């Protein structure tokens, strides 16, 4: 690796409060404390933010060591943009309820698809156990 200008690096993001999106669709917000060459991350004072439509709820989670390959992106939360986003915080129980009903719906659809495939002689592959919901 080089120190050439124009080189993307996470070093400048250290100690910043960042928003992390994981491959399974989770959104985490925490202070980035350390990184390595695989983009493994250590997040401090992390919260998991659950979004349903324009509402969100936060769950405090503490320290995360995240394996780099599960990270989709890291973003800096901009306070201006956040104010204009129309996102509103809601009690976490409400948000979790909404999320649960959405997930039940999705599960039903997936089951129907699987059934249709099975009827045509196709079996779900082992890769399906690793779900990437986004």
């Amino acid at each position, binding site marked *: 690796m080089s120190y050439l200008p124009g080189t993307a690096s996470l070093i400048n993001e250290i100690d910043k409060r960042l928003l992390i999106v*994981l491959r*399974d669709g989770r959104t985490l917000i925490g202070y980035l*404390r*350390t*990184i390595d*060459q695989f983009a493994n991350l250590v997040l401090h004072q992390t919260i998991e933010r659950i979004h349903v439509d324009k509402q969100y709820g936060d769950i405090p989670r503490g*320290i995360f060591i*995240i394996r780099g390959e599960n990270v989709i992106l890291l973003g800096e939360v901009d306070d201006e943009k956040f104010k204009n986003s129309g996102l509103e915080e809601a009690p976490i129980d409400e948000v979790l309820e909404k999320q649960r009903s959405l997930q039940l719906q999705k599960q039903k659809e997936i089951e129907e698809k699987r059934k249709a495939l099975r009827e045509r002689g196709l079996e779900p592959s082992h890769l399906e156990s690793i779900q990437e919901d986004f």
Partner: protein
Amino acid sequence: MLPLSLLRTAVNHPMLVELKNGETYNGHLVNCDNWMNINLREVICTSREGDKFWKMPECYIRGSTIKYLRIPDEIIDMVKEEAQRPRGDGRGRGRGGRGGGRGEICLNSSLYNSHSE
């Protein structure tokens, strides 16, 4: 300090490991290596849906299947203490909050040396 060194500091502490398939393993860290392979003891495994549980005295988890690990908050304080200890030398603990300079040097040297092109 690197993420894997933080993990090494967490040996003997309880932690939660979530795998890529959504299963979670709660247990005490016995050992870990450079590939993030870990050994836990007194483990409770929870299924992805959160409805099935298994208890086992120990388990080995291959690093490549890990999504993330959650460790107790006190580990970060332990790390800060460790960083300050070698600089103690009778000069007191007032030196560099996070072990600033040394920490960054460690970061740079491993980032720009160990991964070959």
